[in-house]
């Protein structure tokens, strides 16, 4: 069992006794994002321990939880759990007076859903979660107060048993061009009841979604007097949950993702009727570091002090505070900086770092113990600890992990991510958006799901030990004196790379999108380009549907099979009708379609039955039609449906003009005789066809005499009618 609960020292046992007296504020911190977005860096170190502005992410989360009055945190570790536990043991969190930190390990969990299910199982054993709890992931940076929100949640829960979750949202406008939030996530559409703040709809829009439209369930508008639809909200991934949430995960074992599965599942589920509420924060900050873009954005927010008091010049978690100078430059007191070096605004420079002559550093974060040679340009980049950068390198919008060596004259183009201990060779140019690691790219990739970590940490260690041998034998991909593999971008994701990268979206890309939108506008001006546009339900069905022709084809096949079986096994007409009705419902077809399909299958049967001459074929058809006319009759009660049958027949004749073609009039007559078709239907068909092309009129001409006869007969009848009327 990888499962193992680590309690603290003996001091904590005594605290357990107090727990009964008041409900402790508890939180579950998922120290694993269950995603692969930070690869290759996360292959060697868990994401929550990656430094953001020189402090590991988990410290921001823990410091905030402690500040917000949370008394007990369960840190759920999965990938690299040993590293996380070791880190926490060394840090001051394990001995914190106000916050009890407990770690829970499970290597089997591959999603947030699994983690919560595991928590639930553990809970029954040890009763850890006593009441409402806060669910966050270990990469959250926030300074919002929680106590009031938890109180609000509890009161709401008291009034309404079904209010099981409160979700924190924050206004954040997404780019109108890319439909992407500033955190690099897809634009979010939510519908909220403006009075109760109940969440009604949640949709993470994909960028290729047609023109920012959103489909709402009709019943939503019926059951709520007003609905507020927002597209400028950001989901902070901070949830106040009631214990029911855990049991819901246990009940629905297929829930994996907190939003995609759980929230959507709860919103769709009418039977349990659970409700999710939202809470919008205004003055405080909250964001989750989900991808490299948000890493960049959140870093800048921290430097701009939106996360106050979790800023580099305040010691909030045992970090050594930096000194804040003019122009928002944070600098450690022992930095050795050359006089000719130019450190620009909003930069951070860590302890023990040396900056050489003529360096230009702009908008960048440089960690502890780095040594930077002379005439180096670093712009918008994140250099972690103990990195060596030799003379004349150029680094733009890149992430450089611990222990990397960049030899003289090397260039990192925008969006590059260098994993731990990579060596970039002399004068080597690392191409834009490439990810470089000492580890080879895993070949077995779950491409469809973002699940990570079947590999335990031990496997990674093996990788590392065998690595040096490999590197020596193989010429490096990073120049002759370099070390590391450039990962190939998986197919499909290539276009997406710029969306989630640390580098800002390049100008040409933006221009491309603008161009595309302009083109779309000229193509079809009826569509209003504003996002958040509402579409009616009926429209949405049509757009959601696959091509209707495909459906009809499938339906026809099914009906054909049914009829064939019916003929072979001699099933009663009632039962066959029932079966076809069932198909009709499942394919959402009309009875005219049924009529067409049924007739088609009957004729097909006739044609497929072995025959030598046209007369024999006619006989076959006649016998089948006679036998199954009731079945056909069931669907051809209306004129339209009868016309559909004739059209279908015409179509078949056109497909096989040699076999069926000559028999058109005869069979039509037969159908008339057997009361399947009424004369009105045939006449209307004839009228419709009269205006068609000559080619289409072949069969009309063929049965001209028959129609003539029918017309005369009806005129006589009409006259009779008129006579009768006159008589009245």
């Amino acid at each position, binding site marked *: 069992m990888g499962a193992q609960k680590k309690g603290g020292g003996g001091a904590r046992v005594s605290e357990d006794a107090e727990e009964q007296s008041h409900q402790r504020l508890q939180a579950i911190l998922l120290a694993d994002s269950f995603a692969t977005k930070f690869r290759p860096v996360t292959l060697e170190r868990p994401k929550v321990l990656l430094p953001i502005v020189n402090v590991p992410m988990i410290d921001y989360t823990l*410091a905030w939880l402690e*500040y917000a009055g949370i008394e007990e945190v369960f840190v759920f570790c999965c990938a690299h759990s040993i590293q996380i536990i070791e880190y926490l043991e060394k840090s001051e969190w394990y001995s914190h*007076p*106000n916050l009890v930190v407990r770690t829970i390990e499970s290597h089997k969990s591959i999603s947030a859903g699994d983690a919560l299910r595991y928590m639930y199982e553990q809970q029954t054993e040890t009763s850890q979660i006593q009441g409402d709890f806060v669910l966050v992931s270990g990469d959250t940076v926030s*300074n919002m107060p929680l106590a009031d929100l938890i109180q609000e949640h509890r009161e709401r829960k008291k009034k309404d048993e079904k209010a099981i979750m409160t979700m924190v949202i*924050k*206004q*954040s*406008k997404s*780019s109108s*061009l*890319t439909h*992407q939030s*500033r955190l*690099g996530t897809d634009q979010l559409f939510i519908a909220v009841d403006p009075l109760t703040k109940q969440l009604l709809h949640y949709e993470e829009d994909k960028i290729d979604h047609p023109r920012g439209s959103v489909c709402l369930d009709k019943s939503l508008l019926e059951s709520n007097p007003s609905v507020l639809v927002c597209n*400028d909200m950001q989901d902070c991934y901070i949830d106040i949950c009631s214990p029911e949430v855990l049991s819901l995960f246990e009940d629905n074992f297929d829930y994996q993702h907190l939003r995609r599965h759980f929230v959507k599942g709860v919103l769709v589920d009418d039977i349990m009727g659970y409700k999710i509420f939202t809470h919008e924060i*205004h*003055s*405080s*900050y909250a964001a989750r570091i989900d991808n490299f*873009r948000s890493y*960049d*954005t959140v870093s*800048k*927010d921290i430097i*701009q*002090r*939106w*996360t*106050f*008091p979790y800023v580099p010049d*305040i*010691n*909030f978690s045992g970090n050594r*505070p930096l*000194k*804040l*100078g*003019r122009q*928002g430059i944070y600098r450690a007191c022992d930095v050795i900086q050359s006089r000719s070096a130019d450190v620009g*605004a*909003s930069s951070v420079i860590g302890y023990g770092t040396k900056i050489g002559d003529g360096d230009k550093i702009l908008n960048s974060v440089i960690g502890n113990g780095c040594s930077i040679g002379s005439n180096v340009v670093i712009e918008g980049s994140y250099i972690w600890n103990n990195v060596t950068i030799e003379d004349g390198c150029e680094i733009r919008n890149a992430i450089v992990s611990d222990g990397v060596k960049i030899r003289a004259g090397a260039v990192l183009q925008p969006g590059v991510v260098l994993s731990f201990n990579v060596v970039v060779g002399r004068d080597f140019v690392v191409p834009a958006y490439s990810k470089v690691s000492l580890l080879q790219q895993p070949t077995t990739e779950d491409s469809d799901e973002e699940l990570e970590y079947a590999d335990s940490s031990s496997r990674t260690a093996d990788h590392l030990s065998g690595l040096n041998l490999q590197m020596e034998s193989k010429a490096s991909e990073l120049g002759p004196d370099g070390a590391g593999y450039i990962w190939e971008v998986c197919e499909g994701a290539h276009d997406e790379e710029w969306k989630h990268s640390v580098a*800002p*979206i390049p*100008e040409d890309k*933006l221009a491309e999108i603008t161009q595309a939108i302009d083109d779309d506008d000229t193509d079809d001006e009826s569509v209003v380009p504003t996002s958040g546009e509402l579409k009616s339900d009926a429209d949405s069905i049509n757009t959601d549907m696959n091509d209707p022709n495909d459906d009809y084809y499938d339906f026809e096949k099914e009906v054909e099979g049914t009829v064939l079986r019916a003929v072979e096994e001699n099933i009663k007409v009632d039962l066959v009708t029932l079966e076809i009705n069932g198909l009709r419902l499942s394919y959402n077809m009309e009875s005219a379609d049924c009529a067409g399909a049924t007739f088609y299958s009957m004729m097909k049967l006739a044609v497929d039955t072995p025959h030598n001459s046209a007369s024999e074929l006619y006989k076959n058809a006649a016998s089948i039609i006679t036998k199954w006319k009731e079945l056909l009759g069931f669907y051809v009660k209306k004129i339209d449906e009868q016309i559909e049958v004739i059209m279908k027949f015409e179509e078949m004749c056109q497909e096989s003009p040699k076999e069926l073609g000559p028999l058109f009039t005869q069979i039509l007559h037969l159908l008339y005789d057997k009361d399947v078709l009424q004369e009105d239907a045939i006449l209307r068909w004839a009228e419709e066809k009269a205006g068609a092309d000559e080619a289409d009129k072949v069969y009309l001409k063929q049965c001209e005499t028959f129609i003539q006869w029918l017309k005369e007969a009806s005129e006589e009848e009409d006259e009779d009618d008129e006579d009768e009327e006159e008589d009245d």
Partner: protein
Amino acid sequence: MPDVQSMVAEFVNKLRKRKIEGSQATAKCTVELLRSVISHQRVPHANQAAALIDAVKAVGQQLVAANPVELAVGNVVRRVLHIIREEDLSLTTAAMAGLDLLDASDDDDIDNCKGIGYPAMSAAVVAAAARSTLRPPSLQTLLEGTPESATVPYTSSSGADSESKTADKSSLTRKLKHDVIEGVNQLIHEISGCHEQIAEQAIEHIHQNEVILTLGSSRTVLEFLCAAKEKKRSFRVFVAEGAPRYQGHLLAKELVARGLQTTVITDSAVFAMISRVNMVIIGAHAVMANGGVIGPVGVNMAALAAKKHAVPFVVLAGSHKLCPLYPHNPEVLLNELRSPSELLDFGEFSDCLDFGAGSGSLQVVNPTFDYVPPNLVSLFITDTGGHNPSYMYRLIADYYSADDLVM
């Protein structure tokens, strides 16, 4: 000891997270913490003062590092260190002088009473005595004529005479610690009483039908104005709101509740209104050794406006706000930049902060404090009376030992 350590840790934590605000509250918490540190500190037989000083310094360094911007913490730590040094000096000199001045103690029954209850004697008196005997006397004590400066050394020696002859080390130790705690208690008393001390002088400064301008919110200013009101002075108060935290609004509310005629103006209207104002009164966050003032942001502007229109600019500061340091780069190093969310709504401006789309050029700076250079200040009113900015260094020399300036 462990409980003291946990108390220190908790206080450090609070300071770090900026959970305690306001220099008076911070000063009070700090001095109370230091008192318990001293009382729990085991003192060796030899060199007790050094042990105490080391203990207090160790804690003090932690506290100062936790929030270097809150200067009151450092001030109080230095004050306590000063008290220890003074007590130590007075005890040693008393022990030595006790032998010489044994016969000189010809004092009356008051001394006998004190002699019995010697440990209960105010340490501050002893400290003042030590100050007057061992150092060049301060200008103030010289001016005041200091009748006690002559008598107290004798009292202490006479009090000590019965014991000092037989004084064994342990009693001396107990005495030092006790005296120090007594002195710290005095300091606590002084800090908590500074509002009243300052407010008592209000009547001398605020006259009938004057217009007073203040900025931001300060409890000292509130008490000061109310004291004048209680003495039947009628005057108007203009309150600049103190953006972005708008603490001026709170002050205005309280002033109105106490029945003062109050007008709220924006910070930007200060220059427009200053010509109608008779005096500007503000509360300081800290007073530096050169007489410069650190106050709520916007104060420098008000000071400049006052200078321009020759309006007296008066700063109220309790003695715990006197900082023995000289300001170096005060706009940055002695300042705290707070979250920009106090200025503007993140959601509304989030599109200007989209770094990915290349529009992340908006920067927001939200400093908490302003530095007013000494030449703009007309008068300081502390709990010991009114002083000129140029006199500050002298006051500071009274309160702090030069050894403690660098901790």
